[in-house]
């Protein structure tokens, strides 16, 4: 399943490198997420500031959460395409 717009005969070496980088991102992603929601980083946002009346810590945690889901979604799509090749 090749998406439209990809060149018909991509360089296999380039492709293997891209697939490897993809797997490395998949590997690192949970650790980035872990670092963002544990001390000390989380303490930066743990105070009573608000944005539009919503406490900043809530925005931060749910924002990181949504970003993780989005990254996982995009990774999953790319990894599945890799798997189909």
């Amino acid at each position, binding site marked *: 399943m090749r998406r439209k717009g990809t060149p018909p005969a991509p360089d296999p070496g380039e492709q293997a490198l891209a697939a490897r980088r993809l797997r490395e991102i998949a590997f690192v992603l949970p650790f980035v*997420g872990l670092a963002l929601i544990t001390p000390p980083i989380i303490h930066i946002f743990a105070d009573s500031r608000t944005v539009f009346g919503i*406490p900043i810590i809530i925005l931060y*945690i749910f924002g990181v*959460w949504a970003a993780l889901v989005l990254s*996982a979604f995009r990774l999953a799509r790319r990894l599945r395409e890799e798997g189909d090749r």
Partner: protein
Amino acid sequence: MTHSANLILAVSLIYVALLFCLAWFVDRRAARGRERWLHSPVVYTLSLSVYCTAWTFYGAVGSAARSGLEFATIYLGPTLVFVGWWWLIRKIVRIGRTHRITSIADMISSRYGKSGALAAIATLVAVMAATPYIALQLQSVTLSFEVIIGGGAEHDARIAFWTAVGMAVFTILFGTRTLDENERHYGVVAAIAAEAIVKLTALIAVGMFAIFGISGGLPESLSTTLTAANFDESVFGSRWVTLLFLSAAAIICLPRQFQVTVVENTSERQLVTASWMFPFYLLLTSAFVLPIAGAGLATMPSDANPDLFVLTLPLSAGKQELAILAFIGGFSSATSMVIVSTIALSTMVSNHIIAPISMWLLSLRREEQSGDVMRVLLMTRRFAIVAVLGLGYLYFILTGGSGALASIGLIAFCGVAQFLPSLIAGIFWRGATKAGAMSGLLTGFVLWTYTLFLPSFDGTFILSAETIRDGLFGIGMLRPHALAGFTGADPLVHATFWSVGANAAVLILVSLFTRLSPLERLQGTLFVDVFRSEPGQTLGVVRRSAATEDLFILAQRILGRDAAAALFASAARAQGKTSGLPDPSPAFISRFERELAGSVGAASAHAMVNRSAGGETISLTDLMDIADEAAKLMRTSQALAAKSREAEHTAAQLRAANERLRSLDMQKDEFLSQVSHELRTPMTSVRSFAEILEQSPDLDADTRRRFAAIIQKESIRLTSLLDEIRDMSFLHEDADSVPLDDIDGEKVLDVAVEVALAASGGRRVAFNWGQRAGPVLVRAHADRLSQVFINLISNAIKHNNGPDPAIRIDSRVVDGAYEVAIEDNGPGIPEGLRERVFERFFRHSAAGGAGLGLPISLRIMQTFGGSIGLEPGRSSGARFIIRTPLASAGIPPPESP
């Protein structure tokens, strides 16, 4: 206003009946092979949401009301694990599918040498850890029922009892109708997926009501939460990290999560989608927790139980339908958890505790029947379901059902986290041993029981209140909440630190000082290198011999007659047999064991097969082959090198063929230009003389005749040249199609000599016969052989410009060939040109033809399998030697002259 108990009972029963119909329908379709949509990643992801139990539905709001954002850790941990699926879950799922793993206990025991003892211990830990968790579901259903029918929260034991009974019946009907060979329950998975939608819808509906119906907007609902929850930085301390760790461990280690994630998984594609969709489900669920908590804190009386806000908010606002939806949502979260949990636990109990005992008992009775083991196992699963729910009920009674839901759930989380060290070490470290895993697990389990599980009864069970306060035997160092003087920590952090930490430390230390048995080494390698080894390649490593009949009887007893027959027939086909039982090869026995393991667990299957097969030996060389990474890498690179050598060889051949083709092409071009040149010379003279004759009518008769004679001579030369060219191309095309006969070579030679002498055109040549071979049969074509002789003899005459020309011909039979030597006393051919005389259009002297005679002769001789050679003559001239193979049969004995 509240609802009547009968209405709520009726709604609950209708809901359960609908679920049951769905499961029954799906099971029937699955049995007919029409279960494609069941394998969809969405159904798989929804079934994973069995993680969100009544604890999530009611308890998360309570937790948010009590301690703010802390509730989020329970869903952030699993989010991290699933976002990082590539790292851990992918490997566990692959191992589970390759080795037909049936439960978390099976996974651990299978990795550590298929140890039955380890499986039994793991089962015990799982059952103990699940007890508070099941009590939590009973408690939430009881409380929500009491609240919705308008009573106070009495923690009525009768409601809890009947809830437990109902759930037991329901699960037995659902989960233990058959002993599936894969332990996959399509109907249950479909029901769980449906419940996932129900509970999410209910929670979102209540959340929306809280935001827009009560608080009047999102920021309002959120800020009330945080001010009321008295939020501060201390939330993100050691407890925050501990909760993240425990929830991350639980999403892998909880028996029911292992069941839906690993056992029910049918393809890794499902996992790819779940990697983002499951975290998304958790995010959605959590997003509505804070607004509900905020609205509850703002509007409810201060003594209201925050665990029940989801239900009491719509009730107090008079939203009856919403309240019923909320009740069904909570009921659905509780039932899905109980169903999957008890199925998983009962599988573990029957496979790892009852199966070994019943095998032993049945073998004592000596009456072996088809499917008897299967029936025993199904019965024990039903009893195990009742027992597990009974334990949960007991826990509920003993603790009084008064604890906060979240704190009860966390006791279970910490309990199952004891599996984590053995599991992680098992799939990433080849050196982890059975002794290490077992002592680590036991240490962790004992510490968890002492520091968290028993104290949760508040002195009503085994540990007295004094012991909890002052330590065992009054020893301060043994206080359950301050072990070794470790005071000041939250009890959960304290218990997690000690139990999981000691578990991991003991596992590592004992593994370092004990040895792996060959089977442990094999399983360890297979687990750690699951992505590198080919499935099936390693089946022959364990060497056993057994009578196929015994194995067949065993298969019948466990799988039933039909399934056993199907299994053995397919194995026989795989071995290339059309009928009868398969050969009991080591590979077949191992495959058979793996099939059994899918039903009764690795340890029991191993023990059963070994009872039939006698002892096993593990081939050390094969084991080394798998285990030795270096050897494997070397072999891979050798194979690669061989492949590239092969490729190089092929390329060289191609290059050579290309060279040959190119030179042939060049030869052809050369030949064509030579031919046109050769044709041009006589044509030019014919044309010029013809033009002179035409344009000069006054030429005298003599000159006219002379010119006409030249034209005639040149035409003859042209004709003969064309004949030669035709011969040449004919020979090229039909080299193999010249018909060969057995002919007398000497007769051909005689005739050829006569013809050649007659055609010599009056030149005086002395002709001598030398030695003669006498009558001899050769395999050749008479006309063409004669053509060769005539050609060579005429050459000898033509090119002999000496004063006293002479030709001598000898013939003889030598080395199975008829050999004719034609020698002249002319100028001969210089040594450097001897090879070239056979080239086309090569002309040594001015006399004679186009230079095609010798190449044609050589070509003809080659079609007979003979040859023409050139030697210096005995005097000055050239000596051509013609060799023709003799006919194979009927060679007349050569006569001496």
